């Protein structure tokens, strides 16, 4: 630590320094400290993070999201205070459940018996993960990948063997909160082998009002003909930060199907990098953001079409109320080899408040000629004609508004094929509306 680093009144370092300081203090105790490849990975990551720090708005990829509110906090070690499953979010209907509290796997709160695939804790499995962990997330390319590589403490590791239908697995990642802000850096590894499938429903949450950061990194590999349906239900505390980075590599004929619902958090970024690496690999990235006063949510996607005949579909919807800000950045990159690419992207925002702001940057980068790519973006308020039509049929103004907001979100929700995920989304949306109702009352 040099003398110039910013410090709070308590003397604890802030911003990037706070994380580097933690790494220096914890490096001997972090999982894998005695495994040379892990130590080397963390050291490389620290070097990169030390050089670059957190991204700023000068970085094109972070043009619309300012991490300043996060950098103003100093983070402490979490003191896990969850002792039983009463505090956990409700089940999403899956029999299997992996629970992480404050970044650590909790076997006592999880239900992972008799599953047709292997699942467990990254911290425990580390000795067997050389070559797998860090394959997709390169610390040098992304500061948040570097941050996570430097500090990851645990995470979910799943491998669904060839041809096995894995059913529904729930992943709960929960912060317990506390006086001082805490920071969690889970690293999740998911591998779906040839022809296998899994539905992963992830809930990230924490007690309302708690200040914490969840900064997970996912490394997802879908082998030939495999399929991962991945729902992410983000219901963090309104004072919390969530900076997620997902790397998904899909082989020929495989599918990565993702739905991200952003309903909580103060400052949220979901960054998804999908690489379609074999012929007819597919990805569907859909999502909805429901933002109320004081919230900032950013969805950033990059789809790399690196093989021919791959379809990609994206539909993102954002509803903004109060003084909130929604960001969507989506890039479709079609490599020269990726002939007959079929890429579609739709991004729509609905502004319910004069103080809301929305920024959108849909981007196409195309180097192959036999392609069909399109994107659309719309921003606007509720349609006055539609509102009048509903009211003329006797539906009160507020209910009519709500009906139209739901209808607006419907297209993105309908794009989800998995019934378990559909049901989970419905429940989360319902809970969000109820919370809004209470607030309005």
């Amino acid at each position, binding site marked *: 630590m040099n003398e110039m680093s910013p410090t709070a009144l308590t003397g604890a370092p802030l911003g990037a320094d706070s994380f580097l300081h933690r790494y220096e203090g914890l490096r001997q105790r972090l999982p894998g400290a005695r495994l040379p490849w892990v130590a080397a990975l963390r050291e490389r990551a620290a070097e990169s993070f030390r050089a670059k720090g957190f991204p700023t708005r000068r970085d094109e990829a972070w043009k619309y999201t300012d991490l300043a509110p996060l950098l103003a906090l100093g983070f402490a070690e979490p003191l896990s205070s969850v002792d039983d499953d009463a505090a956990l979010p409700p089940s999403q209907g899956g029999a299997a459940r992996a629970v992480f509290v404050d970044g650590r796997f909790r076997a006592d709160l999880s239900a992972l018996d008799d599953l047709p695939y292997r699942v467990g804790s990254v911290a425990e499995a580390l000795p067997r993960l050389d070559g797998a962990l860090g394959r997709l997330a390169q610390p040098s390319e992304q500061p948040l990948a570097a941050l996570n590589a430097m500090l990851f403490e645990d995470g979910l590791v799943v491998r669904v063997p060839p041809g096995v239908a894995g059913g529904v697995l729930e992943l709960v990642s929960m912060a317990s909160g506390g006086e001082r802000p805490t920071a969690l850096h889970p690293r999740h590894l998911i591998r779906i082998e040839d022809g296998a499938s899994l539905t992963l429903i992830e809930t990230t949450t924490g007690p309302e009002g708690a200040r914490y950061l969840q900064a997970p990194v996912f490394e997802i590999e879908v082998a030939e003909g495999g399929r991962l349906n991945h729902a992410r239900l983000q219901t963090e505390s309104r004072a919390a930060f969530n900076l997620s980075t997902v790397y998904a590599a899909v082989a020929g004929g495989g599918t990565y199907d993702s739905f991200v619902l952003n309903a909580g958090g103060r400052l949220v970024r979901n960054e998804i990098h999908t690489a379609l690496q074999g012929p007819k690999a597919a990805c569907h990235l859909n999502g909805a953001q429901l933002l109320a006063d004081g919230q900032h949510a950013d969805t950033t996607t990059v789809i790399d079409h690196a093989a021919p005949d791959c379809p990609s579909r994206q539909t993102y919807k954002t509803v903004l109320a109060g003084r909130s800000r929604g960001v969507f950045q989506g890039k479709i990159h079609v490599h020269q080899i990726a002939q007959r690419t079929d890429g579609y992207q739709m991004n729509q925002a609905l502004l319910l408040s004069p103080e809301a702001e929305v920024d959108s940057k849909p981007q196409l980068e195309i180097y192959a000629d036999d392609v069909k790519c399109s994107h659309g973006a719309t921003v606007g308020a509720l*349609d*006055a*004609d*539609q509102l*009048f*039509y*509903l*009211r*003329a*049929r*006797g*539906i*009160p*103004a507020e*209910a*009519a508004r709500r*009906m*139209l907001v*739901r*209808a*607006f*979100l*419907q*297209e993105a929700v309908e794009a989800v094929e998995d019934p378990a995920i559909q049901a989970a989304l419905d429940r989360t949306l319902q809970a969000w509306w109820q919370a809004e109702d209470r607030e309005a009352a």
Partner: protein
Amino acid sequence: MLDIRNLTAEIDGKQILRGIDLEIRPGEVHAIMGPNGSGKSTLSYVLAGREGYEVTGGSAEFDGKDLLAMEPEERAALGLFLAFQYPVELPGVGNANFLRTALNAQRRVRGELELDAMQFLKLARARMKDLSMPEDMLKRGVNVGFSGGEKKRNEVLQMALLQPKLAILDETDSGLDIDALRIVADGVNALRGPGFSALVITHYQRLLNYIVPDRVHVLVKGRIVRSGGPELAEELEASGYAGDLAA
């Protein structure tokens, strides 16, 4: 039922209605005919309470209540129904969900019991059968991807379900072929009775062969210039509005 006195209204400072007087008693069906731009649609929007139409004078009472002071949904709950000339598309809003929400919202205001999904479906299916509408229209988004005729039939279906006291049909006949026209007319005629009135706005006499009005009014340049029995419609069909326009 509906009592309009010297009603004047404007859009963006431009006067469209220049003093309308009209009384419709329970059980009566009135028709308003007139050339394009005479203010027919404006009258229907003003009565239904659409924003952007400023009432500058006069009154409109519905069942003895001041219609103009009410929100659009309050007017609907009282039993005023507007069949839109251009029904709005509501992508993402299922037709069944929409109809049940509207019906229950009105029933709630009137202190009636709300219908559950099963009761509603039973009712809706019966009405749809009357109107020769395929059942899958319930599952589709409101008016989304409907043909012109389907949209109009959907308006009539809503009317049949909501059972209004007064229906305003704003050029419901436009764009309909003869079969669809007959279905629409049958839907209106089925509701006719002492508790149901209607105001049929149309450019052509054709619809009035199927929905025979008690009174016919001619609207020109924002005023009713002539009124008469059903024979007036036939006369207009033969001679046009030229004489009224010159007046």
